[in-house]
């Protein structure tokens, strides 16, 4: 229970009201009520079940004292989706978070129940990493600012190393543009101009991507969440054609009945005109295109409405050849016996016209929805960040593994010549703590320090290659033991004299 004090109002919050003693709640509410004249009390209950159940638990007299309002908690997933729409997918996002990293981030949110704050700082760190570690991120600057001073020859050299540059040149060679390819490879100025040309292309790509996504979500027919669609769009591109893809909307559109189709057309038209606010995409901004598209959709809508009216006049329901109702199961009752007969409904002229309308709608939508995967773009490395390892290292560390590795294979960190041969096994040249750790991990749950010392001394003592005298070895032994204890590996055991108990299994 937490309370916030104010001059006039006291807010008392009960987290997890189900776990609270009902009698106590009743008394408290009564007490608050009796003070109502002087102090304003607001009581906030966290209810995991339902308001009705909560009310049923309270006494009637208590319930009467409460004047309630219900606030629904927004689902964490919905919050996350909103954040992603604006900050990851939206036009404002300068950097595209790649599908792999995005998937990891979302999974961490869902599995570790981290708050949205954790997601935001992960996002921030991805930006930091990109701009800190990728020198080509400078190309994201506006074209005017990219003069010779900023864009150094080293940058151009680095661009020529990129995967996307290679595939771009290869494509050019295949297409027979040998001159273009050669200039890209040799002429710095040509390459520089070509790089500057990418900015509008990038913006076009982004528009196309967001348009596809906005329209695909506007149909409300996809089974996947927006996040899933976005990941797929970056990874595989958007295309309505191929059935196994996530953007497989064709069947769903074709199966819709006339009323649904009108709803669909309406939604698509609004999206074309107004865009999607959360994505920061303002609709198709080329007026001519937008008008043409709207005109086509309006005509289509008019046709469909006319067909509905006509078929209503004839007393039949409008259907297309795709709808499952084209086959009808007919039941006839003859002398108290039910007869079933299958009957393929013949399509009327209106039905055929409606089928055509659906087909043309799908064709329109297909024209508007569709884009390439991000990785097919020239210079996509500059504005896509898709490395999950730095993220995992920094946010989800594995300290146990790091300690175990340092102690069991010091060579990995020290790179010293002497411990090279040990390669993860025991050797006298290892640091004392490391030797003790090896012995420690071989021992059982209870360790005799006298035996530990004997084993240690056998490795580094007079008769070994190291040849240390007993007292010096003992000093190092002491230090190793103390360090292991400080790291929480062992504690004193009173079961036997000079014994220690193992505490960690890394």
């Amino acid at each position, binding site marked *: 229970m937490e309370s916030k004090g104010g001059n006039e109002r006291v807010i008392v919050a009960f987290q997890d009201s189900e776990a609270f003693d009902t009698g106590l709640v009743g008394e408290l509410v009564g007490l608050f009520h009796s003070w109502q004249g002087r102090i304003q009390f607001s009581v906030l209950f966290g209810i995991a079940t339902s308001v009705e159940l909560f009310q049923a638990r309270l006494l009637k007299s208590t319930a009467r004292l409460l004047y309630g309002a219900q606030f629904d908690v927004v689902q964490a997933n919905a919050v996350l989706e909103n954040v992603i729409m604006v900050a990851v997918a939206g036009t404002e996002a300068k950097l595209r978070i790649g599908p792999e990293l995005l998937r990891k981030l979302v999974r961490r949110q869902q599995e570790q129940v981290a708050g949205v704050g954790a997601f935001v700082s992960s996002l921030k760190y991805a930006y930091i990493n990109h701009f800190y570690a990728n020198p080509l991120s400078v190309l994201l600057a506006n074209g005017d600012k990219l003069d010779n001073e900023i864009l150094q020859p080293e940058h151009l050299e680095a661009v020529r190393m990129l995967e996307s540059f290679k595939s771009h040149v290869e494509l050019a060679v295949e297409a027979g543009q040998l001159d273009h390819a050669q200039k890209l490879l040799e002429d710095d100025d040509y390459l520089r101009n070509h790089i500057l040309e990418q900015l509008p292309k990038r913006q076009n790509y982004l528009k196309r991507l967001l348009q596809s996504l906005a329209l695909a979500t506007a149909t409300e027919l996809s089974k996947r969440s927006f996040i899933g669609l976005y990941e797929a769009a970056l990874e595989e591109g958007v295309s309505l054609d191929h059935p196994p893809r996530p953007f497989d909307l064709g069947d769903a559109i074709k199966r819709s009945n006339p009323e649904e189709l009108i709803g669909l057309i309406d939604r698509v038209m609004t999206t074309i005109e107004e865009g999607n606010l959360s994505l920061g995409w303002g609709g198709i901004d080329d007026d001519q295109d937008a008008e043409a598209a709207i005109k086509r959709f309006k005509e289509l809508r008019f046709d469909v409405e006319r067909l509905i009216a006509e078929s209503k006049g004839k007393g039949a329901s409008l259907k297309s050849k795709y709808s499952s109702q084209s086959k009808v199961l007919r039941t006839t009752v003859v002398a108290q016996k039910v007869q079933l007969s299958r009957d393929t409904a013949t399509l009327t002229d209106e039905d055929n016209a409606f089928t055509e309308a659906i087909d043309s709608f799908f064709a329109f939508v297909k024209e508007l929805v569709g884009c390439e995967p991000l990785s097919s773009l020239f210079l996509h490395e500059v504005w896509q960040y898709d490395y999950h390892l730095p993220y995992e290292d920094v946010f989800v560390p594995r300290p146990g593994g790091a300690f175990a590795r340092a102690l069991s294979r010091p060579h990995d960190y020290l790179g010293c010549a002497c411990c090279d041969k040990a390669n993860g096994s025991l050797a006298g040249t290892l640091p004392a703590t490391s030797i003790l750790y090896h012995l420690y991990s071989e021992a*059982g749950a209870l360790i005799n320090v006298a035996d530990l010392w*004997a084993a240690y001394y056998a490795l580094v003592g007079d008769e070994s290659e190291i040849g240390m005298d007993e007292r010096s070895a003992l000093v190092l032994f002491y*230090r190793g*033991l103390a360090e292991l204890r400080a790291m929480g590996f062992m504690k004193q055991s009173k079961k036997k004299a*000079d014994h220690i108990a193992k505490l960690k*299994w890394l």
Partner: protein
Amino acid sequence: MPPKKATNLKPAVRASRKRSPPSDPYKIPEEDENETPKRRRHANQDPEDEKAPANEAVVSTPSASRLKKAVATPIKLNGLNGVDTPSRRNNADRSARRKSARALVDRVISGAISDDEAEEGDIAREIYESSEDEDNEEEEENQHGETEPTTPSKPAAGRKRKATASTTARKRSPTPPRDLPPHEQYFYQNKPGLSKTSSNTLSSLQLLTHDEYFSLLRDLAPKNPHNSDISHLQSLHASSFPQWAFELSQGFSTCLYGYGSKRHLLHQFATYLSSHPPCQSSQTNKIVIVNGYAPSFTTREFLSVLSSAVSLPICTSLPPLLSFLSSRPKTTLTILLNSVTAPPLRKSSFQSLLSTLASHPQVYFCCTSDTPDFGLLWDSALSTSFQFLFHDCTTFASFSPSELEVVDFVHELLGRKTRRVGGKEGVAFVLRSLPENAKSLFKLLVGEVLCADDTGQGQEEVAVEYRMVYNRAVEEFICSSEMAFRTLLKEFHDHQIITSHKDVLGTEMLSLPFRKEELEGILEELTA
């Protein structure tokens, strides 16, 4: 149910169990399944033939193997600490033996063996044979009766297990399996009966004194063959300073973990930050390095140092400090904390104070952790406000004496007296400077702890209830109020001659950090 024939045959089988095992019991499971029943039948048909060599086997084969074992690991001969109820166990074993014998006989009589049954027969035979081993061993033990006064069944069971393991086809190797995942290893090593260690002690070894430790260390430290590698590693870490400073400036906190002392590294980082502050150029940055490993660390002191760093009149609570910072946007504070997992810092109240500090926009926070368990310090709310970025900073650098009191630490681990506590002499010295009633209170405490030690045998640490001691002290007119009692205890706490903690139920418990013999010595001295 076994058919009648079997019951008729039972005495014969029993006899063979007692005295005439098959000539070579250890080979059977390795042999072909089809062969075994024949041998069995043979053994049952004419037991008389088998008797003579069987007896020999009883005497020679197992004892030889057992002797070998005994030589290799002498622990087991005198390590008889098992507590078990032998009679019940034996009874259970007997009936299992009887059943398995019966099953074997049945099989032999009916003659036919299907594939499933073969498997079953294996188990039965194993039980049967293991009991034979045990019989032999029991005999052996009786022979060795003089050297081993008690023969509880548990060590015998262990021995039997090993004996069969080395011989039967199903290998149960006594050496621990390697490369198990950590959790499997935990369960393997905590198996009851597995924790057998020798009873060697360090009594023959002269333990190090502080003086000897430090004088030897002074000679040893420059000779460490890894010195150059360690400094190279440190320089690698130092190359990430700009990155860490940038991360700090972006509102993240950093946590450096990994094996080795990071004190020097953090110091270097502080030097770097003083010339490249993470704040904007218009702001002034104050750097505070806090040594969490210092045993005398207190929150009060920590806050007063922070407030003096930002030139605020000394304050010992957080809100004024934060509001002071907020009112002065030109001042920023960088806190570099050594050993965030040190015992005095582990309290959740301190960690939440730290997180509140770290979440302030003008405070940059960087800490190091010397243990791998730092993740447990922060729940999700705390880690959200910390906004930690973790970096692996394994340095391999050795800990300085102020970070780690090696000799005391090891002696504490071994249960020896340490310098800090001062042992018996230390107590006498402390008590000499205290008033009379403090002496009598300590005497009372020692008496109570010894009393509790006598009654509650086998406990890890003997502690007495705070309330009970207080009541006794009042009864004996040592003190009249709880206030006075607390003052006396505080004196003991300051000299570290008592320790207190809360048990699982939340009752305050007092205990003395001495071994029983030492306590007895102290009591003698006090009563004298």
